[in-house]
């Protein structure tokens, strides 16, 4: 079946602009994760959804970052007033039920560049 998809694959924006990054998880997966991967680093946890609700948003760096999953499938990560330091690859992963025993399946990522 189809894997996790993310759009756009690349996004270039100017400092101060607003961006939205989309994640389509594997159909039927209730758990969805967002990560940020900076150059030369491993992924960094941002937020975890279980169904429609954000079960843990402790990884969001500040209040410029927000994510939603209104119908329990597609999720959108929203970044306001982008800064150059937001440049990174944003990864989405989904798993069937959530919890660490459940394998996370990753999407290809969105490469965000803030000029």
């Amino acid at each position: 079946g189809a894997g996790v998809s993310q759009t756009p694959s690349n996004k270039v924006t100017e400092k101060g602009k607003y961006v939205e990054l989309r994640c389509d998880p594997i159909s039927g997966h209730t758990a969805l994760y967002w990560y940020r991967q900076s150059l030369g680093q491993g992924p960094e946890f941002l937020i975890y959804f279980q169904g429609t609700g954000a079960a843990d948003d402790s990884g969001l760096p500040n209040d410029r970052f927000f994510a939603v999953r209104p119908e329990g499938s597609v999720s959108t990560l929203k970044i306001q007033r982008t800064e150059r330091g937001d440049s990174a690859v944003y990864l989405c992963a989904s798993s069937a039920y959530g919890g660490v025993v459940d394998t996370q399946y990753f999407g290809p990522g969105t490469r965000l560049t803030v000029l």
Partner: protein
Amino acid sequence: AQSVSQHNHHVILSEAASLELGCNYSYGGTVNLFWYVQYPGQHLQLLLKYFSGDPLVKGIKGFEAEFIKSKFSFNLRKPSVQWSDTAEYFCAVNPPDSNYQLIWGAGTKLIIKP
């Protein structure tokens, strides 16, 4: 700060060489451990995982990893690498205070010379 360390950022080997990639973590208590791989142009995918039981874990494509609790390590090994093993390898740890968070190492880029 608690962390996951992968000390080798780049490794270059010839085909048929043996591989060992280091992973150390600084969390006390019970942890769950993972190795993920990202082949060129592909998504991150799970290579193997350890939750409990036999500390020697076998994964896909002939990889294995050994959990040594006393050394806080979970090193990845393969007896004989192939050119197709060229990829970036990430170690990740699920710390004791969470049942879903993964804390990741910085990754090791492995290049296999044909």
